[in-house]
């Protein structure tokens, strides 16, 4: 993971959360934090929330309120000056990155629109967590894709046990026509078939590592590339379960987007690397594209 790139992207994301998007900032950041650990810190640093909090404290508010209560021409003029100053501080906290933010947002919206319209991480049943995507494709292909993935997962060497991992359609009837929710459900601390913890000793680390396995590794935990790159691996998911997690799975190139698959020197992890953000045609099953990332970047 390239920290510099992440920071730059976080800056861009921060900028997108300006007046227009900041209303649900807490919820947004909480959601992003679950997928991109550390994003809140980087975003808040960019926004300089500390300075805002210091400047807009209760004493300052009471001081302004006092001037208002006084109600003279002088006091009101002073109060207006103070409020304007504070408005400038708040607005200025994000203004310097706004231009980049708009570009990021535009790119994100383009990518987001064609593939899935929602990303949500939420608690599931029995302590599991669920990552839900809303995909704009027909149900039949998604069901087939889910079945295929689940079937392969069950027998996969070094993969989570079947109770730790599952892919299914959400059966959400409230979605617009032509869209479907696909849910990836997993246990935060994931164990392999030998009951060993595969991704970390605590839920947070495990969660992060698992999401990387779902494609975030190859997209550098980058929100924009998550929307574009993570859905790109077409035939990287091996048909034979015994091949999952082995280097025999080289990740068939999908229109040149997956440029190589390599095995890590220290960890032995197999990772696929993507290049480019354009997509040629949408005639294939996006859920399959997305979830096969799990088959293209496993370990050992």
């Amino acid at each position: 993971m390239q920290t510099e790139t992440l920071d730059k992207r976080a800056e861009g994301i921060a900028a997108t959360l300006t007046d227009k998007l900041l209303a649900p900032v807490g919820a947004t950041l909480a959601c992003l934090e679950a997928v991109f650990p550390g994003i809140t810190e980087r975003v808040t640093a960019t926004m300089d929330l500390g300075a805002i909090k210091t400047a807009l404290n209760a004493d300052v508010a009471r001081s302004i309120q006092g001037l208002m209560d006084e109600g003279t021409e002088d006091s009101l003029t002073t109060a207006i000056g103070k409020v304007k100053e504070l408005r400038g501080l708040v607005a200025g906290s994000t203004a310097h990155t706004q231009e980049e933010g708009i570009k990021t947002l535009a790119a994100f919206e383009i990518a987001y629109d064609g593939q899935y319209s929602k990303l949500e991480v939420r608690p599931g049943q029995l302590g599991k967590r669920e990552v839900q995507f809303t995909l704009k494709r027909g149900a039949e292909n998604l069901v087939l894709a889910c079945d295929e993935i689940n079937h392969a997962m069950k027998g996969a060497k070094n993969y989570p046990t079947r109770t730790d991992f599952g892919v299914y359609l959400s059966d959400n009837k409230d979605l617009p026509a032509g869209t479907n929710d696909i849910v990836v459900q997993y246990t935060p601390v994931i164990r392999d078939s030998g009951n060993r913890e595969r991704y970390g000793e605590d839920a947070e680390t495990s969660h992060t590592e698992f999401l990387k396995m779902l494609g975030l590794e190859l997209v550098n935990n980058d929100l924009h590339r998550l929307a574009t790159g993570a859905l790109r691996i077409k035939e990287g998911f091996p048909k034979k379960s015994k091949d999952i997690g082995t280097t025999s799975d080289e990740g068939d190139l999908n229109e040149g987007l997956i440029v190589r698959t390599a095995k890590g020197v220290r960890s032995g992890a197999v990772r696929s690397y993507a290049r480019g953000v354009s997509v040629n045609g949408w005639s294939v099953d996006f859920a399959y594209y997305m979830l096969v990332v799990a088959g293209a970047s496993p370990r050992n």
Partner: protein
Amino acid sequence: MESEKKAESEKIIELRATLEKELTALLAHPLVPEEFRKVFEDKKNAN
């Protein structure tokens, strides 16, 4: 004397309106801390 008082009153009303507008815009910003916002909300509720 009467007209001076009236002019002053109008000026105050104008300033209050400006202040109200500026303050509303400030408080609407999502980065404004809750403790800051609460002072004005409490005052409004008390009235």
